[in-house]
Structure formats: structure tokens, C-alpha cells
């Protein structure tokens, strides 16, 4: 080893007295760039991890079963927006919750960001935004694949792309915030439990694999599932992508997602702060 003992000169002689202030926005962008750099390095793992489940579902229920004539075109139409909802929600949750569990649980590697000269809550907010972006990417990745696997879907239209984007963003925000909350509130040993007890029921009772209006046949369940934020993402995607098919009205979906997102945002950022500052 040849570690010599000279030390770099100070960047500027003035730093001793008054370190230059740096804007929170600059730091926020740097934090976001870091997360995007890491996400880019892991893009393949990320996409496999978060879209495998919905894609498998897609192949069985969107391709094989219709091909076997067990399910009709109408089901495909109902399924497609739901698959997108699942993809974006899963990836938004996981891209925040998993690193949080790991960082706070054992590696403590988030420490270097916690020393950044910005309020600690801003660091949490940045993580949520990064998760949101990853949810968006997952949805954009799955949509063309879904269309390819299922073949033409008559009711599908991209003419309401603005609404689609809005629902994807709000849904990603809600689930990314939920991921922040879960990832900082749950003990690392219980992360497996999170998937089986929280995420799995959320997917299956989230009106992703069937439209909400279909639950007219089981009224109790129709109202019970309204506590599940996934319902609003799935129904919102239906309203935006296949507006001809019966769906929850978009204004209600948007309002519900706003409420859910702000609740999870508050809980998530509070929980992050508690974990970050001992």
C-alpha cells in the first residue's frame, strides 16, 4: 500500500468561515440523479422483478384462456388496464420499500444522503418521486407488451393520453408513498409478510383482474374493496384507456387517489424521518 500523506488543498480558501449555501432544488436533483443512475444499472432486474407477475398473468388470462375459449374478448378489455395498474403499483411500491428496508435495516448506506445539507423530509420526498418515475416506466414498458400478447383490443384507445398520464402519475405517487411507509415502518424480517399479507390481497381485491362494476353481483364486496387504493388505479386506467367499457367516473377516481396519495405521503415521510433521526 502506498498511501502518501498529502491532503488536497481546500476547494476555496473561504470555506473555513462561510460554506456556500446550496439550494434544496439542486440537492434534490442530485439525489434524483443518483436514484436514476442506480435504477438504470439495475433496469433489467427492476423490470423482471416488478413486471414478471403481471406479465405472467397476462399470458395466462389475456392470451391462453381466451385462446382456449374459456374467456372472451370482453375479459381482455377489462384485464388490460388492470395489468397496467398492477405493474405500476408493484414497481412503485417495491422501488421505494425494498431499498428502504435494506438501507435502514442493515447496510445503513442511506447515511451519505442523510448528511446532505437539506431537510431530512426532502430526502424522503425525493425517494417517493424516484419511485413514482419507476412506476411510470413499468407502465410504459408493460402496455406495448400487453397489446402484443393480447392482439387487437377493440375498445382500447390512446386518445385520452392526458388522462392516462394523470392516472399513472397519481397511482404511482400513491403507491410509491405507500412503499415509503411500509419500507420504513416494517421490520426487515417481516418484508416477506408484507408481500403475502398486504400486497397480495391488494392485487386480488384491487379490481385489477375484473372491473369494479362486475362486483355488482357481490354487493358487500363491492363496497368493501373501496378501501383498497388499487381499485382506483385500475378503474382509473379503465376510464382512461377503455372509456367505452363501464368504469368508475374519472373525477371520483382522481379525488380518491389524491386523498390516498396525500395520506400515504404524510405517513411515509413521517415514518422515514423517525427512522432517519435517532
Amino acid at each position, binding site marked *: 500500500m502506498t*498511501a502518501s500523506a498529502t491532503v488536497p488543498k481546500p476547494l476555496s480558501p473561504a*470555506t473555513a468561515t462561510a460554506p456556500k*449555501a446550496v439550494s434544496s432544488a439542486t440537492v434534490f436533483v442530485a439525489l434524483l440523479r443518483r436514484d436514476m443512475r442506480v435504477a438504470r444499472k439495475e433496469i433489467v432486474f427492476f423490470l423482471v422483478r416488478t413486471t414478471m407477475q403481471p406479465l405472467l398473468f397476462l399470458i395466462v388470462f389475456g392470451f391462453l384462456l381466451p385462446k382456449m375459449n374459456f374467456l372472451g374478448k370482453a375479459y381482455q378489455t377489462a384485464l388490460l388496464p388492470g395489468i397496467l395498474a398492477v405493474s405500476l403499483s408493484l414497481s412503485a411500491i417495491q422501488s421505494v420499500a425494498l431499498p428502504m428496508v435494506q438501507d435502514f435495516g442493515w447496510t445503513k448506506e442511506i447515511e451519505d444522503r442523510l448528511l446532505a445539507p437539506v431537510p431530512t423530509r426532502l430526502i424522503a420526498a425525493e425517494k417517493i418521486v424516484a419511485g413514482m418515475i419507476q412506476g411510470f416506466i413499468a407502465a410504459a414498458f408493460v402496455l406495448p407488451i400487453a397489446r402484443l400478447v393480447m392482439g387487437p383490443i377493440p375498445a382500447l384507445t390512446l386518445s385520452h393520453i392526458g388522462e392516462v398520464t394523470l392516472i399513472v402519475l397519481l397511482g404511482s405517487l400513491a403507491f410509491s408513498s405507500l412503499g415509503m411507509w411500509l419500507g420504513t415502518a416494517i421490520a426487515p424480517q417481516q418484508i416477506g409478510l408484507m408481500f403475502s399479507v398486504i400486497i397480495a390481497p391488494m392485487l386480488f381485491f384491487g379490481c385489477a383482474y375484473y372491473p369494479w362494476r362486475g362486483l355488482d353481483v357481490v354487493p358487500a364486496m363491492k363496497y368493501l374493496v373501496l378501501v383498497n387504493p388499487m381499485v382506483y388505479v385500475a378503474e382509473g386506467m379503465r376510464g382512461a384507456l377503455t372509456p367505452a367499457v363501464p368504469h368508475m367516473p374519472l373525477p371520483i377516481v382522481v379525488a380518491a387517489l389524491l386523498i390516498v396519495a396525500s395520506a400515504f405521503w404524510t405517513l411515509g415521510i413521517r415514518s422515514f424521518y423517525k427512522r432517519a433521526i435517532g
Partner: protein
Amino acid sequence: MPPGGGNGMGQRGEIVALQGLDLEVRDGEFFGLLGPNGAGKTTTIGILTTRVKPTSGTALVGGADVNRQAVEVRRRIGVVPQRANPDRGLNVIENLLFHAAYFGIPSSASLPRAMELLEQLGIAERANSKVDELSGGQQQRLMIARALIHDPHVIFLDEPTVGLDPQTRLSLWEILRKLHAEGRTIVMTTHYMEEADKLCDRIAIVDRGQLLELDTPEALKQRAPGGTLVEVTLSSDAAPVVEHVKPLEGVLRVEAAGPLLRVYSDRGGRVISSVIQAAEETGVNVANISLTEPSLETLFVARTGRKLD
């Protein structure tokens, strides 16, 4: 100084407080926090680096309150943690560049500095390696580079040389001396007496969250109880032996702690044979003997009743 006494400190002082412990680290000082594991050293560093909220009291770093002006404090400090925690999603050089970016330094300015730091710490050839490919010592050096990349005025190091090989430890000491010579304030925790002795302008000896001693290494050593410390581990309780050892020639002071007998001697190790004899006359056997010359170590033992490691 009164608790929370930020008054009269001016902007050039840094105050440290923990559990009713008040002390001031002067601007440009190399300050050592010396104490055994669990003494509260890491908590102190945690509070001063805004990572732990104190339950009460005040702490200022460069005039900024760690509680209410955490952002101001973070801007001024660099931190080397006890356990290396590099960002594993990034490679070695990215760890430095992004850390600089968190402080608003563009990569055009941070890249040459990062390379210089890696060069000086002897890990330049690992610049593009994954962090996981570094050895423990190399990761620790990366932590030091990271703490310096944004050119902070106050540097906190929590047990920086634990787990380093002797050569790396020496080169780190040299680097710390240079940083100190540049006028930076350095606060370092350690449980190595020698390290504190060699590097620090002043040392606070802490144990169980309490400040026991605070002075220059020289003054502290003079305060150490006279003579060589002879520690004798007995086969049973040492208390009954104390009275028999006290009158022996060359014995300055005797203490018992369980089976451990501490004898301070002004005749070096020459009291050993008579101490053993005295012990055996009271019917106990000697299991182990150790000798320590007057030092920070003997002062520490005298003040806490415990050894450092």
C-alpha cells in the same frame, strides 16, 4: 461552562454536550473523545452530526444549532462513520461524485478532487470498482475520501482506525495531521490510547455518558496516579488481600474489584513477588498478572475502574 452555554462562544467555537456533559471544541482543534465501547462516544457524534436528536440540551457546530439548524450544520461537516457504509448502488468514484453533488459541487470540480483523494488514500486504481470489491480497509478509506470531498471545515471521525492494518492506520494519522495543520477542526472518537495521545490537542475521557477528564494529553498523563499499575487476577475475591498488600514496600495504592487487585507501585514490576506472596499467605492463588506504565491508560483505569478494551 454552563449547560448549553453558547453565549460568549462567538462563531469560532464548537460546543459538545451529552447527558449533562458540557464541553467546547475550539476552532481548529484536534479533539479526541476517548472512552470504552458504550461510553456514549457514538451518540455524541450522532448528535453533533444531526443524525441523533438529543433529548435535552444544546449542541452547536460552528455556531449552528444541531437541532434547529441541521442543514447549516450538515453544510459544515464531514463524517467518517464507525462502520463503512458506502452507497453500494454506485461504484467508488461515483460515491464521491454524488456525495459532492449533494453539496452542490458540480462534477467538473469534484472529479479532479476525488481522484486526488483516492490517489492519496491509495485506492485510485479502484476508482471504477464496485464498492463490494473493496476490502474492509479500502472501504474505510473511501469513507474518509467521502468525508473530505466537499471540503468541510469540521470533520467527525468515529473510531476511524478500527479494523485498519497498522500501515494504513499510520498513513491515516498522517492525513489527519495534515488536515489539522490546514486549520480544520477534527473531532475523533477512539478507544485507542495511543491514537488519542499522538494526535489530539485535547482529550475528553468519557464513560457512561459522563465527562471524566478533559485536558491535553500531557496534562492528563501527569494526572495519572503515580507509578506502574500492576493488575493481579486472583482465584477468588481480592478484597481480603488489600490490607496485606498495602504495607508492602513500593506500593502506593491498592484497590480490589472482584477477583482483580490493582496495585500502583513506584518500584515498577519489582513489587510483584511480594504481592504474590502476600496474596498466597491469605490463601488465594494468582491467575494472571499484567503491568502498565503510567499513561492515559492508568488514568482511565483509576477514574473508571475499568480498562479501555
